[in-house]
């Protein structure tokens, strides 16, 4: 296997509403920041791949417009996934493994404030059985949270503790939208929005973009920087129909982790960045991945502190990269999810170079 390194990551602030700039205008400075960080230019990039969804901002072919932010002359090899940009990273990683390219710039963007995100997300459901019922993403997560409570493994207090931890850690993340000191007891007095979920259990609507650059080890940028290697990466998908799955568990995460560990030859991680857009999902993932208290979960605050729809998974890689690059940890687990109620899960094991 080729050794693939993350060499740069940049993210816009994760704001509740970007009133002026469109996605292209938000992307341009962030692409420039990432390229500058790696001391690269677009000429050094073999392939660009993005993750976005036109339903989010309601603009047809917005991902095509976003190519304008790249300076696409001469033309670049380009691809797009209608998924979280973590899957754009996976496509790029595969292309490096195939020997087709040695560098890739990956970006994800989402301007969720423009539409009604929970309702928009119902459009990812199958058109016959689920979509006609308009199951919004919060209600589906509520079903999952309720299934978790029914197992007796966790309580609503545990959900609130996940939120307290996220907000506290996010104080160190200047791009976070929600951070600060909150009390469990105070959180538990808040009303339900889709029981047993309260507003704070849900990731905040966020506008933003992020950019990440990977290269083959043979093509590391000349800049003085510390690369972070992707030692193992795998993703697994479960059934789409919620009724078929055991919602209180995440078997696909367990499987993906086993495969990633085997690739990496690494069993332990110092930190884990989990893409759990709803607080109970953090607990489901912790169990599925066998994470004990030795592993620092979401040092960035995680998606409950800021959630760029279509890029929050890529951000788990980016945030892990930053933590490892700063020498605060040696190994990290980066997780990304797609689909309702943790349907599809990706696990990567990262190591500081």
């Amino acid at each position, binding site marked *: 296997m080729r050794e693939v390194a993350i060499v740069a990551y940049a993210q816009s602030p994760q704001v509740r509403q970007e009133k*002026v700039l469109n996605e292209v*205008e938000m992307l341009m400075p962030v692409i420039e920041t990432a390229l500058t960080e790696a001391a690269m230019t677009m000429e050094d990039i073999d392939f660009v791949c993005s993750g976005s969804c036109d339903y989010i901002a309601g603009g047809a072919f917005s991902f095509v417009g976003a190519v304008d932010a790249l300076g*696409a002359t001469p033309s670049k090899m380009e691809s797009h996934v209608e998924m979280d940009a973590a899957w754009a990273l996976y496509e790029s990683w595969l292309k490096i493994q195939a020997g087709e390219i040695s560098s890739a710039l990956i970006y994800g963007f989402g301007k969720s404030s423009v539409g009604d995100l929970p309702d928009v997300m119902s459009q990812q459901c199958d058109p016959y059985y689920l979509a006609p019922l308009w199951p919004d993403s919060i209600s589906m997560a509520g079903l999952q949270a309720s299934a978790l409570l029914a197992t007796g493994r966790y309580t609503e207090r545990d959900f609130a503790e996940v939120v307290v931890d996220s907000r506290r850690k996010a104080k160190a993340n200047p791009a976070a939208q929600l951070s600060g000191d909150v009390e469990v007891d105070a959180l538990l007095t808040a009303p339900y929005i889709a029981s047993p979920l309260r507003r704070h259990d849900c990731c905040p609507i966020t506008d933003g973009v992020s950019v990440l650059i990977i290269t083959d080890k043979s093509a590391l940028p000349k800049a003085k920087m510390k690369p972070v290697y992707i030692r193992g990466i795998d993703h697994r998908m479960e059934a789409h129909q919620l009724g078929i799955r055991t919602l209180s568990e995440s078997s696909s995460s367990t499987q993906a982790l086993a495969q990633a560990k085997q690739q990496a030859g690494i069993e332990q991680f110092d930190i884990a960045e989990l893409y759990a857009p709803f607080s109970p999902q953090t607990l489901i993932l912790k169990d599925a991945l066998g994470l004990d208290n030795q592993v620092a979960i979401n040092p960035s605050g995680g998606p409950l502190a800021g959630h760029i729809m279509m890029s929050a998974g890529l951000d788990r890689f980016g945030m892990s990269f930053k933590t490892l690059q700063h020498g605060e940890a040696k190994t990290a687990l980066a997780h990304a999810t797609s689909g309702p109620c943790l349907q599809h899960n990706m696990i990567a094991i990262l190591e500081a170079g």
Partner: protein
Amino acid sequence: MDIDLDPIEQFDAPIYHRYHATSSRAITPFLHAMKRGELLGHLSTATGKVLFPPLGACPESGQATQIPVILSDSGTVIGFTTVHLPIPGSKLVPPFTVANILLDGADQACSHLISECGINAVAIGMRVAAVWRSAEVWNNSLENIEYFKPTGEPLVDIDILQQQCLAKAEQRKEPVKGGQNA
């Protein structure tokens, strides 16, 4: 499965989503200018090209463009098609001609209608000028121009026009500081 069942070929599944979009940093000044009856393009300092309509990004360099350039409302047809089929939801009655028009001073063509001449008279290189609606109905829209009509000037050789445009862009270009995005 009962194979005698009639196949269901159609069922209604209407989807409605509400969006509250705003125009972007680049498009907002363009729309305000339209209301004043001005055609506002952007100069890309990286390439020296004048982009109209402006999208805020120079597609060649990937750099943000913000320098406004007011353009003439006359230009040259560099491509066209005549539409013979009615377009659902459109007010336009076929046949009508849509052209890519390079406004004088611009380096990027915009699309608009051609009228006041027979559809067979439209030609590449034809000089055209905007026919504006009455100023009282001007809005934040390119529809303030009803269509473009031929000016009667001689045909332009668009290959020569392209060379002239590229030469002018080269003069407007700022010296390169580093790489494309550096």
